[in-house]
């Protein structure tokens, strides 16, 4: 994962950063820095098997009760495929 982070960031620095610096688009650079920081933080957390950062899955899991009642209503369940 760390290598992938490095590759993507290097690609961005080579392909996009010079143009952004040339046009003095500092707000755009800020946005990208934020996005890259977020990716790096989660990438490192994944690499270290850490669960310190909030997992967006929690938002999906909040719909669990609804899915369960739907399944019990229509008597389906185990065979659900992706």
């Amino acid at each position, binding site marked *: 994962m760390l290598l*992938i982070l490095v590759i*993507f*960031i290097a690609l961005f620095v080579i392909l996009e950063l010079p143009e952004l610096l040339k046009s003095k688009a500092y707000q*755009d650079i800020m*946005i990208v820095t934020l996005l890259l920081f977020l990716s790096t933080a*989660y990438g490192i957390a994944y690499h270290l098997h850490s669960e310190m950062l909030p997992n967006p899955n929690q938002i999906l899991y909040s719909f669990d009760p609804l899915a369960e009642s739907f399944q019990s209503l229509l008597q389906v369940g185990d065979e659900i495929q*992706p």
Partner: protein
Amino acid sequence: MNENKIASRQAAFLTFFLVLGTAIIYMPESIAGRDAWLSTLIAVPVGMYILFVIITLQIMFPGRNMMDISELVLGKFAGRILNAFYVWLLFVITVFYLYDLFIFLDIVILDLKRQIHYSILILLAAYCIYKGINAVARLADLLVWLVALFLALGISISIVSGSNFSCLTPVLADWKPVMAGSLYAANWPFAQVSVLIMYLPFISDLAEKRRAIYTGYLIGALILVIRSVLNVSILGAEITKFTRYPTYQALRLLEVGTFERIDMMFFGLLFITGFFALLIWYQGLVLGVQKLLDRDDMRYLILPVGLLLVVFTSYMLAADIEVFSRQVRVLPFHSLPIHILYPTIIYIAGKIYKKKNTASRAAVR
């Protein structure tokens, strides 16, 4: 043609690829067993409704992006909150598409780490997005005939050599699995045409040739119904229910004369449709982030958003067992309301806005 403009015909091809997507491989309505084709059929109007709403809205406010329309008709604050919900949906669905495609590729490329799979797919898609919307549309234009040829070939071989249509009877013996299957099919792939929201402002002849987009959608839906019929008639209801990739499994069983294992011939077809769905969603996400953050250019967002997708797909969908037993089960309840409500709310607000505007103009006169 302008670099940032596409024709309705090309948008129709994109819609066609979007409907087939990875759903042609996975068959989300397989829960309905032998009546899966009925589930597919019942779910078709959901996508038609979404297409109707977004196309009508786009014609009402020509040249504007749906996110701009949302802020115009609902106000800056409410519009932006609604847009954030939709960008979140774009993100989640793209993550799932990336995962689906990886799982499918894993059949033939076993020894690559999943993050490397994700990165290769994202970099491939990023390259297409860098080339522009017009290039993506032209790629669809080019590949649709190849896909159509292989689809025709696959369907013909399936009918001739492997189908047993008695597996489809009795029809509608139990309505409950059919309803459950139709919910899953409505969410994936039919409701996912909502991503066209991001593409409609780029269509040069939408008002005159919008029927082409509906046609593309309906042809895609028809192929999915045929897929459901053929999968059940080749594999039987039980195996279809419990197989991860029923279409691929069905293709593996086919024989043409002394030729066996012709599934590899169709692997490319299934990959192309899946990759296009990923590409369309990824580009939609980049456009969505650009609009949400109010930026003029999307080019510099392509790679950072791509990296975000690679990282979050690894982080969120880390274990297969959890994905298939839990996340896929809850996804329709999370996504379907956004797919339907986002355009519907803007549509209603847009109608009210137009009515008010007309009334105030008449009063001034």
